[in-house]
């Protein structure tokens, strides 16, 4: 039996990373890109994408590559010694629309994996275009990488893609797509949102004898921690469930259809309100027994203020610190190297109350004590 060759898509955001070297905190928008170039920025994204593609050259006969014309893919492809079919050619000046259109074209082509080189803005564009309908993987070339959809380095992205195309890695997992509003950032304010989740390959660890158990059970670990939260829920109490895959596991344990990137409110095992904002949360919980259930969001480890702004300082004041339930897997805490968890509610007083130590539910009757600090340093 002959199985079809796997298809790989490649989109390079050629201007990703432009703003970083010249201190612009990002590269979103044509104006910023022009400013960066005027300041002497050199586009690094295509070269970094090439580094990832070089890792695929060794298996070039095993897959078909589809990409975009010019700097959005073909140049990097050629530099890496690969041949590709060009399915869109946006011309010299590229925009977010070009990324979105290209991603849709790749999905239409039926690619098994879409590699994209860029930063948080690029991940967001990819998410807008294809959601979690196909497997994707980011080659980190941008300034801001808050999103979890990126490999740790271009080389690592190339190796993981090679493993995936060869069937050595089959599992995928959901990775956060986060983006910070660059205009606010340049004015000294950080406003990050959780946009959704992309489906990325998950590298399996080689099994190494009896001491190292398989780590295939991350979803199971989240489910166990979620079950602990649910089993300890009290009658008559409101539970404000924040966004994230771990808190989604709480909703799954409750057999409720919650939102992945929104905030839901449950009581007595029933969904009281779905995808609510600050106002609705306050309407429900003010003067009532209530708890907040949140998980750690993003690669920097935010508890509040990134991606879950609906659970505002006012909501936290109303509910009280002692009624905050944090749930996260050990693997997540490990990936953050146990650095202090971060809060940025926009209210210094609330941030101060939240700082100190907090227990994080990591499993059934298992908690970790984590330090809560201020903003990332």
């Amino acid at each position, binding site marked *: 039996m002959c199985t079809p060759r796997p298809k790989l898509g490649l989109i390079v955001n050629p201007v990703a990373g432009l703003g970083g070297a010249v201190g612009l905190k990002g590269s979103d928008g044509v104006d910023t890109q022009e400013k960066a170039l005027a300041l002497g920025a050199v586009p690094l994204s295509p070269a970094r994408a090439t580094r990832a593609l070089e890792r695929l050259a060794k298996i070039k006969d095993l897959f078909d590559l589809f990409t975009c014309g010019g700097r959005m893919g073909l140049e990097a492809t050629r530099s890496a010694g690969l041949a590709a079919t060009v399915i869109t050619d946006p011309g010299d000046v590229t925009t977010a629309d070009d990324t979105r259109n290209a991603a849709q074209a790749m999905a239409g082509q039926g690619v098994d994996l879409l590699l994209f080189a860029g930063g948080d803005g690029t991940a967001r564009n990819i998410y807008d275009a294809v959601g979690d309908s196909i497997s994707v993987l980011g080659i980190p070339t941008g300034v801001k990488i808050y999103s979890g959809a990126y490999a*740790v380095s271009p080389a690592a992205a190339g190796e993981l893609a090679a493993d995936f195309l060869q069937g050595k890695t089959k599992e995928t997992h959901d990775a956060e797509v986060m983006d910070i509003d660059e205009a606010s950032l340049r004015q000294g304010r950080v406003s990050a949102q959780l946009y959704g989740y992309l489906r990325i390959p998950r590298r399996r660890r080689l099994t*190494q*004898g009896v001491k190292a158990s398989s780590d295939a059970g991350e979803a199971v670990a989240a489910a166990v921690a979620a079950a602990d939260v649910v089993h300890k829920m009290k009658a008559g109490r409101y539970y404000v469930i924040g966004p994230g895959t771990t808190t989604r596991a709480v909703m799954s344990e409750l057999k409720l259809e919650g939102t992945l990137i929104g905030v839901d409110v449950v009581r007595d095992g029933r969904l009281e309100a779905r995808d609510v904002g600050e106002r609705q949360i306050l309407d429900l919980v003010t003067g009532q027994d209530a708890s907040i259930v949140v998980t750690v969001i993003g690669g920097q480890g935010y508890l509040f203020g990134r991606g879950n702004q609906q659970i505002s300082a006012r909501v936290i004041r109303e509910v009280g610190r002692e009624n905050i339930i944090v749930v996260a897997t050990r693997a997540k*805490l490990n990936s953050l190297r146990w650095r202090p968890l971060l809060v940025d509610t926009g209210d210094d007083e609330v941030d101060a109350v939240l700082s100190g*130590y907090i227990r994080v539910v*990591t499993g059934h009757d298992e908690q*970790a004590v984590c*330090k809560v600090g201020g903003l990332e340093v």
Partner: protein
Amino acid sequence: MRDITKERFQDGKPLLRRYHQARWDEPIIFELSSKDERGILLPEVEKGIRDKVGDVLDALPEGMRRERPPALPEISQPQVLRHYVRLSQQTLGADFNIDVGQGTCTMKYSPKVHEDLARSPHAACLHPYQPDETVQGVLEIMYSFEQILKEVSGMDRFSMQPGAGSAAIYASASIIRKYHEMRGEGDTRDEIITTSFSHPSDAACAKVAGYNIVTLPPDKDGYPDFEALEAAISERTAGLLMTNPEDTGIFNPDIKDFVDLAHENGALCFYDQANANGILGITRSREAGFDLCHFNLHKTFSTPHGCGGPAAGALGVTEELAQFLPTPVVACEDGIYRLDYDRPNSIGKVGAFHGSAGCVIRAYAWAMSLGADGMKTAAEVAVLNNNYFLKKVLEIPGASAPYASGKYRIEQVRYSWEELTKDTGVHSEELGVRAADYGVHYWTSHHPFVIPEPMTLEPTESYTRAELDEYVEILRAVAQEARDNPDKIKKGPYNCPIHQVNHDEFDDPNKWAITWRAYQKKKDK
């Protein structure tokens, strides 16, 4: 004539070995079975005996008789011998590799003469149901070894019954529970605190014993975060279970503060001494204030590691807690040794009888052959070896030792290849597997990894400087290959009997087969 030294040395320095392991394509022993083939033909019962007792099997109660013969392979002696010798040639055994890569396991030389003692009929043919007066020798060894462990730790009583470090930790958690129960706090004290770099068994075994587990984070220098303990401790805390040095090899000099704070809050403290090899004769758990501690005789005291046993987790406690130790303990009155079963407050049993006597004999022999000064010297050499190794490993581009930068480590180091992985896409496990092509291997870390791309190395006192240098050269070669030819690493190993394994089958309950019977059931699925 060929100059054979040129194949082994260059400019007086040893070259990497051109190692190649045997490959026998050996079937599983069940596949070698041939009906009615026998290793030993038992003689017929002699007529005189038969006339006297009739059918010897008559004595077996009906309900205990098999209906069918056991499903064991039928195979002759020379076939058995060849089979297992072939398998032994396909392992990377402790007797021929520079076994410093199995960090946290304290691989060290287990003198063969100790093996002779443990396997001599005087020891190996004893039965735990023999009357005490007929096994005075082995009871004396157990009692005497207990006195040694008391001296090494400062504790007042020991039990050798736990069959592993984890069993000792489980017994400790059970003792902690019993202690609080007897004080009327059994129901309210339901939490055990441990640390993120402690041995995972501290959390796991206390969990099995029914406790809620609270884990403390490392601070930025890799020490357990004391302020986190202050935040975590309460009237719900039953005990603090921690390793020191932790698996990073970092020793916490403020350990007594942790213990004191736990005591002030009414909790008991257990010192997991799985990593005791660098502190023998240097610090004692009692001086740090601990109430309980254990030693892995199969690590620190040179008893060889079996695959899952036999082992011994010798468990020590203060006088106050001695009443709770597992039953029996070895007692001595007027020079007569006996097993004391009359212990109403004991937690009961965590293993059979008095534990693995063979392990205790080997450990006792090790301690007696070294003496107190010798054991301290062993610890000092282990620490020296480790810090020599640390310096050499850190000279390899891409290697690092996160936390406690610039400080010495105790008996092991958890390194990181994070930088090398970022540069090359090659992961730590792949480097460790490729190292097997040179006759060594290394272990990464427990999962999930805290330190990215980890490698845990523990060079004990048993390794020479030349061996450590050779190991470092292997690491250097493999790390360099990751840069020059990452694909070659990823396809390794090449010189081992088994190349790459399909890991899918480890994770799928429908595919994993730990026994022949399971394999038969699942192979066609």
